[in-house]
């Protein structure tokens, strides 16, 4: 899987590149700013780009903007955004309409090497990777008109993990449940949210969107 890494810290860039190479990725470009990133994506058409939110010249949100532009111009390129700060609202802006092929992780997550490499791979394949902090913020959110109100606490937990990007199998591992139990929860979630007829992958996406927007 071909990957482009964009981070203005050479140290960070090298570190991420090494663990991705170790993980079997083909790192085709390492760049230090948003313009170079966009050029690299245009030129190399990678499977996934790993992007730091803050890059020169203003060190504010160049990376996030570049990520949105790449998503608009190259729908088949996955974008995994790394940030020093994780905010649910910001995540939503990044995902916009389509959560396919998007990741939004706290920078520290690279330290869980296996999970991180797996997340990059998932995004590269068109899946999602949402930081568990976002999920925690959203689950902890208090509001009057929550469309997810009907879900049981367990079902919310499962939906959160779906949103993080985990497969049923991954959820089994994380929650230490049998595959059958997880499948029951997942179907119950789809039922309560009203996605009965759609194919499974699509329903997953819809559920995640419902979760993020709730």
């Amino acid at each position: 899987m071909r990957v482009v890494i964009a981070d203005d810290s050479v140290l960070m860039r090298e570190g991420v590149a090494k663990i991705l190479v170790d993980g079997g990725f083909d790192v085709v470009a390492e760049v230090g700013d948003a313009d170079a990133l966009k050029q690299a994506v245009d030129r190399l058409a990678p499977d996934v780009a790993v992007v730091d939110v803050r890059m020169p010249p203003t060190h504010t949100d160049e990376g996030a903007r570049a990520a949105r532009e790449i998503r608009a111009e190259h729908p088949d390129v996955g974008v995994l955004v790394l940030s020093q700060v994780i905010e649910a609202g910001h995540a939503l802006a990044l995902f916009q309409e389509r959560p396919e092929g998007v990741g939004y992780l706290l920078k520290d997550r690279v330290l869980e090497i296996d999970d991180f490499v797996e997340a990059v791979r998932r995004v590269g394949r068109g899946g999602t990777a949402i930081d568990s902090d976002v999920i925690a913020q959203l689950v902890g959110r208090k509001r009057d008109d929550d469309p997810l109100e009907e879900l049981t606490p367990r079902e919310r937990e499962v939906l959160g993990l779906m949103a993080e990007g985990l497969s049923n199998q991954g959820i089994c591992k994380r929650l230490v449940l049998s595959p059958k139990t997880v499948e029951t929860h997942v179907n119950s979630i789809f039922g309560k949210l009203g996605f009965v007829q759609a194919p499974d992958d699509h329903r997953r996406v819809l559920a995640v969107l419902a979760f993020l927007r709730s």
Partner: protein
Amino acid sequence: MRLARAAIAVGGLVLAVAAYRAQVDNLPVPGERGRAIAIVAIGLSFLVAGLIAWARRRGNRLGPLMVVAGLALLLRQLRYSHNSTLFTLCFLVGDLSYAVVGHVALAYPSGRLIDRAGKALARAGYAVTLTFSLAVLLLYDGRGQLLQFDPFPRKSLIAVSSQPHAVELLQKTLIVVFYGVLATLLIAYILWRLTRATARARRILAPLLLAAVVVALRAVFECVFTFFDRPFANDYLFWWQIVGFIALPLALLVGLLRARLAHAGVGELVLRLERTPPQGLRQELAHALDDPSLEVAFWLPDRREFVNAAGQAVPLPPDRPDRAVTRLEHDGEPLAALVHDPSLRDEPELVDQVGAAARMALENARLHAEVHAQLAKVEESRARLATAADEERRRIERDLHDGAQTQLVALALELRRAQARLGRDADPEIDRLLGFAADELRDAVEGLRELARGIRPPILTEAGLAAALDALATRAPLAVQVDASPGRLPPEIEATAYFVACEGLANVVTHAGASNVTSSARNENGTMVVVVADDGVGGAQTTDGSGLRGLADRVEAHGGRLRVESPVGRGTRLVGEIPCGS
């Protein structure tokens, strides 16, 4: 001077009687008595109005000029005398008297001829009337009839030849040149002055409109009288121009005394200024000078520049034809400057008097302006300090992010890789140590992140105010509705607005007992309005409460305001308004 005026008045009366007799005795036509009185009245009107103007407007030469015109108009009538000396002298003055009247109109209101056109017209009037009258006297020896005279011959003392036809031609030519050409030019000049004048000047110049009408009437009368049937001219036209001529000096006098009334208003101005606050000074002066366009600038000796009432530096315009500047001084030191209508140049005494009357008030207003100027400086410096502090916070947050945090994560990553590289064969103690070190590093990063959030939330830097308010609401322990729609704004504005919302939400959580909370931020015509409103118990202490005071300082440093509305039992609103210039 008073004696001189009294003597002139007496002499004028005597002259008036003589002028009346000269007409009645020497032009024995039925009905001529009333006309004689009317014609004498014109001269007297100029004389009296001139004397009053002279007495009331010292230093203005129009009064004396009107007196001269009045005397000349009376002397003119003596030319009908059969006494050769009187005839010769007064014939010379005859048409000249109208040149003086023209001069009066040209020199109104200052008594001076203000431009080349005016000077040329006045000179031409004198030259034409004198030259033609002199020429007539040289060629007239009693033969033939003079225009406007009865058939009885007079004797010119300076006649050198007898040319009756030339005399008639000369007289008719004078009518055409003087009453045709020059009178038309005078009317055009008056209209030109009126159209070019400023509003204030036009009010003063209004009597000249009457002058233009009178000159026109007189010119038409002269031409009709000379070239057409006399009875026609004798009727209405005669009386219309007589009435106009009597009214003209009175109108000019009223125009002059209008300004004189303004002088009388100076006393009143002193009383009014006693009760006028400094910001009302300009209006009072404008009223006293009858110039709504008046601007006042104050001299600040320390800064060596002029400032307006708000303390802002104002460069004085150069003295231009359309805008005049008068500097007011006290004890040789500049005090203030008046930028005013150019028509006030003709009334320097008035400007001086008003300036003197308002000296105390001007000093006072200058002190106010000075305080304003200093306050503005302090405010500017406070805003600079606040912006610098915000900038510093931003720099620290960025340094943490780009420096320490990133380096620590990268370092921890190396340790993790080392751990992975050693794999299962590693000494469990080394594996544990590496893992421990990496975890410690991550905790350090977490700690730095919290530190950075307190200094300046990274989300504010990365995604702007709306996202930061969203994040704030998400983290709050109660439901908060967020309504924020500003785009990106200058970082110090975003930070200030953010901390207003922070403080508001913190207070809601601690005190309000609220169930509905909204946090909003809108850009309303260049003002960032950030509001945190709840439906709690209200009655919040609004006096210098610890956090609020510091926050208010911060908001005010950016030229904004912070206020708390907290009626008991009706919730609390914390409102911050910060100018954001877009």
